[in-house]
Structures are given as structure tokens and as C-alpha cells.
């Protein structure tokens, strides 16, 4: 699938069901921003400047707790360290592209765009990767910013009793299950989940990093074990 338009369309089709989960996620992020006392410009600006929902929600919670700036920045960056891993994983696929492509491609990198792209790229070597990735990442960016704006302006009008915030872990869960392609991957997920739950009380959200590394380590060990047996 070398043709750009087909690849873009394929990316769009891949991200489309996930957008259903992005809408409540971004709306909640917008509502949380004004709920934390941010003026509307800053609430909208936050989503454009950072464009990373999990870290935005964590940062806003810290703002509500009057945490110092370095704690807010440190926690958010630690949560977003996973983008370094995603970047390393996707880089070989985008190597042939010029910098004017790779710079915006990097900006719209998200868990969701990453997950659908890396899965397709490993299965299908012929597809036009930049266009496929954009087909997933650009609609997601648009959906995110639009839903965030709705949350900013509607603010407190969404009842918490609807538990729409559950859509956030559900969106990640919907990406997690297809990623469990092998026994070592399942082990990686289980170990990571266990460590994340156990280390949840660590400051600066370090539990997330610890869990990710523990999970990767467990996956590598299981991998070596299955290879040597």
C-alpha cells in the first residue's frame, strides 16, 4: 500500500474506534483544567502545548493541591518518559523521511497513534508508514482538541455519577489486549500491573516507570527462557 491516500485512510480506520474513548478522556481533561482554577486560555493551551492526557490530569491534580512547580513539571515528565520508548520504537520506520516530516510526526505521538502504528508496521512491510501514522495521529489530535474545548466550556456540567472517567483506563485497556501477542508479553503486562499497583504511592509517579521497566525486564527474561528451552 504505497499510495498515501490509502495508507492515510487505513490509519484513520485503525484509530476510529479508539476515538470513542478519546472523546470522554479529553472532555474530562478540559473540565479538570477549569476545575483546577485555570482560565480558559490556559486550559485550552495546556492541551496544545503538552498534548498528553495522562500527564495533564496528573499535573492538574497537583495544581489543585498547590504543589510546587518543580513537582508538577517533574511528575508530568516522568509520566511522559514512555514517549522516549515509543520514539525509539518508531524511529526506524520513519528514518527515510525528511526532518520536516519527522518534526510534526513527533509532536502528534500518543499511546494510541503509537499502538496502532507499531502493530501495523510489524505486520505489513509495504505500507506507506508516514501516511498511515498521520491517518491515525491527526484525527486523534483534532478529536482531542475539540473534546478538550467542550470540556473547558461545559466544565462542571457533566455529572460525576456517570463515571465517564472510567473511559480513560478503558481506552488504554483496549490497546493493551491486542498487544499481548505472546506469553512473554502477557508476563510483562502482569508484572508491570503488579508493580504499578504496589508502587502507586511513590512520589512523582515513579511507580509507572518502575512498573514499565519491571515489565520489560520480565518479558525479556521469559523470552530468553522460551528460547533456551
Amino acid at each position, binding site marked *: 500500500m504505497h499510495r498515501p491516500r490509502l495508507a492515510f485512510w487505513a490509519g484513520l480506520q485503525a484509530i476510529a*474506534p479508539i476515538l470513542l474513548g478519546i472523546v470522554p478522556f479529553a472532555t474530562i481533561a478540559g473540565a479538570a483544567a477549569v476545575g*483546577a482554577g*485555570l482560565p480558559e486560555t490556559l486550559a485550552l*493551551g*495546556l492541551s496544545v*502545548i*503538552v498534548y498528553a492526557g495522562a*500527564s495533564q490530569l496528573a*499535573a492538574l491534580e497537583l*495544581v489543585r493541591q498547590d504543589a*510546587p*512547580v518543580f513537582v*508538577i*513539571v517533574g511528575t*508530568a*515528565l516522568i509520566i*511522559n518518559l*514512555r*514517549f522516549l*520508548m*515509543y*520514539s*525509539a*520504537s518508531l*524511529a*526506524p520506520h520513519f*528514518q527515510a523521511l525528511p*526532518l520536516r516530516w519527522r*518534526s510534526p510526526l*513527533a*509532536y502528534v*505521538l500518543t499511546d494510541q497513534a*503509537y499502538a496502532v502504528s507499531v502493530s501495523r508496521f510489524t505486520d505489513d512491510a509495504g505500507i506507506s508508514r508516514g501516511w498511515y501514522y498521520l491517518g491515525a495521529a491527526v484525527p486523534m489530535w483534532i478529536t482531542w482538541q475539540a473534546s478538550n474545548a467542550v470540556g473547558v466550556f461545559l466544565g462542571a456540567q457533566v455529572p460525576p455519577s456517570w*463515571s465517564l472517567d*472510567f*473511559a*480513560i*483506563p*478503558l*481506552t488504554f*485497556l*483496549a*490497546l*493493551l*489486549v491486542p498487544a499481548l501477542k505472546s506469553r512473554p*508479553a502477557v508476563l510483562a*503486562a*502482569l508484572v*508491570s*500491573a503488579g508493580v*504499578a*499497583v504496589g508502587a502507586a504511592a511513590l512520589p512523582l509517579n515513579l511507580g509507572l516507570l518502575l*512498573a*514499565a*521497566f519491571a*515489565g*520489560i*525486564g520480565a*518479558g*525479556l527474561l521469559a523470552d530468553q527462557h522460551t528460547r533456551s528451552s
Partner: protein
Amino acid sequence: MLTGIGLLWLAFVLVGLGTYLLRFSFIGLSERAALPEGFKQGLRFVPAAVLAALVAPALVYDGTALGGWLVSDRLVAGLLAVLVAWQTRSVLLTLIAGMVGLWMLQWLA
């Protein structure tokens, strides 16, 4: 709010810049940087490990305990979503099953 708006703008710009650098890091390198083999093998487990770390605490800590057990409504709804994801391979059905499952558990409890 003790943190002034100006400081918040600064904080968010710093987070934004830092996050972009993280995103750009390897993608921006035009050289085929020789990644060690172990590193490349480890990258394969990033989706599973990172996504699990994001999901698990939300299922365990954010829900309401069901009838005195340690298990929460969100955990059960989450497990239901996993089952649906596994069987149907449909993101849409997974989201619907999880939300409907949670609402039903909340309504019944």
C-alpha cells in the same frame, strides 16, 4: 491557588517542551543510531508493559469495593472488558462492554 497563572504557564511550557523532546528524541535522529540488541528486544515489550502500568492502578484503586470484598466494581468491569477484547478483537465493543459493565455493577451494588 498559590501558584500564580504566570508560573503555571511556565510549568506547562516546560512540560510541553520536555515532552516534545522525549517524543522527538529517536525519531529526530537521522543517523541509524546503533541500538544495542538487548535494547531493541526490550522495545517489543513497551506497549504491553506501559499500557498495563497505566491501566492497573485505575482499576484497583479508583473503584468502589463490591460488598465488602477487596475487589472493586471497576476491577470487575475492567476484567469484563479484557474478556470482550480478547474474544471479539473489537476496540468499540471493549469500550462499550466496560462502560455498560461498570454502570450495571454500580446500579446493582
